[in-house]
């Protein structure tokens, strides 16, 4: 077989799948699950440190997508990025045993990196890790405490013994660093 010929793989279109979900197509939801369940589950597991609880978050988010697909439209950015952020927020809510602060429909994301294709996703993940490793340990810790543990800037300042202003700067500049490195 001539391996060099290759085949073009259509990563599909998230919006087309979401439209099919709106029409009640279970297979479309299954395809979206195959595409993004890893991202949602990994974020939830990192935050909750409990596989059962992470599975519950995964289930809840995709059930919401099934019940309310209109909550996501193309104006909200890329579906993969949107799901990653929703997974983070819902996991932190569960960790802190609190009600969601906002509706998923209010979560609008600027056009983010395309995550539809598994290969692209792997490259993006690798690049994020490289950028995170380039940050100073203090900055990385501040970012991770804010994102994965849901600590406020004040709580991080108390936990690390650093001034509040320093924590704010570290988080803001860390996010800016990620944005710059992924800018087209």
């Amino acid at each position, binding site marked *: 077989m001539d391996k*060099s010929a290759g085949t073009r793989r259509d990563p599909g279109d998230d919006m087309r799948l979401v439209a099919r979900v709106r029409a009640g197509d279970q297979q479309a939801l299954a395809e979206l*699950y195959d595409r993004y*369940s890893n*991202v949602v589950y990994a974020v939830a*597991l990192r935050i909750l440190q409990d596989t059962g609880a992470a599975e519950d978050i995964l*289930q809840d988010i995709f059930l919401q997508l099934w019940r309310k697909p209109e909550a996501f439209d193309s104006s909200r950015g890329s579906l993969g*990025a949107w799901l*990653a952020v929703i997974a983070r927020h819902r996991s932190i809510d569960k960790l802190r045993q609190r009600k969601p602060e906002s509706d998923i429909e209010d979560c609008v994301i*600027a056009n983010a990196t395309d995550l539809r294709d598994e290969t692209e996703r792997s490259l993006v993940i690798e690049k994020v890790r490289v950028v995170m490793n380039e940050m100073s340990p203090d900055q990385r810790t501040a970012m991770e405490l804010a994102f994965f543990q*849901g600590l406020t800037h004040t709580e991080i300042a108390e936990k690390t013994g650093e001034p509040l202003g320093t924590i704010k700067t570290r988080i803001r500049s860390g996010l800016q660093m990620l944005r710059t490195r992924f800018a087209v």
Partner: protein
Amino acid sequence: MKTHEQFAEDLPLYALEELKGDERLELEKHLETCAACRREVQFLRSDLSLLGLSAAGTRPPVRSKDRLMRAIAAEPRGTSAPTPVRRRGLSWGLIPAVIALGLLVWAGTLLRQNDELHHNLASLAALYNNTSAELKQAQERVRLLSAPDAVQVALSPASAQKMPHATTIYSPSQKRLMLVATNLAPAPPGKAYELWLIPMEGAPMPAGMFKPDEKGNAVMMDHQMPEGVTAKAFAVTLEDAAGSDKPTSPILIVGSGL
């Protein structure tokens, strides 16, 4: 009342949903009238999604999907999915569509035959290449290594394990590719490693199969690629030994930065 700059300071906290009470209400009021801050919140969420990706790596158990599919099957919606249509006999109005479908199937058959002919041609070409003198092969290798546009890419693990390592050398003008890999785990029976060229646009392209020796080393020389393919990255997956047209397993090592 805070200034715009003071509100801007709170935006990361708001994007993280950690701004509470009056501060949150005050900022949301500001967002209603400040397009720049609204846009910045959207960008911050995009940045946060990238941060979330740093956690990626663990796949959910298979049972999770089964559980989800059972749950959604239990709550179907009015408008049903494009499921198979019930047969009610063929109406005359469908005849053009049936003819078109037949033509499509015929065209598909022709395309497959065409692919097979290409395949056979490629096999004959490969056979011819194998009978070339070693001197010629060595010359081609030297030409690849010394080509002005030859690039060297080191492939490192996609996961936290940093054991396996591979380097590819690829020249678009020479249409040739070389790979040297170390520290590879033995391929399970019936499996082999497959290298993928990830082009600037489109799906990954198969770029050769290889198996490591008992020391985990593997070398793939002189793999031919189609003309005019610019590589964005290379990746390696484990596939059936017969090879695959598209990756079917997670990426083991990947390298980019061309």
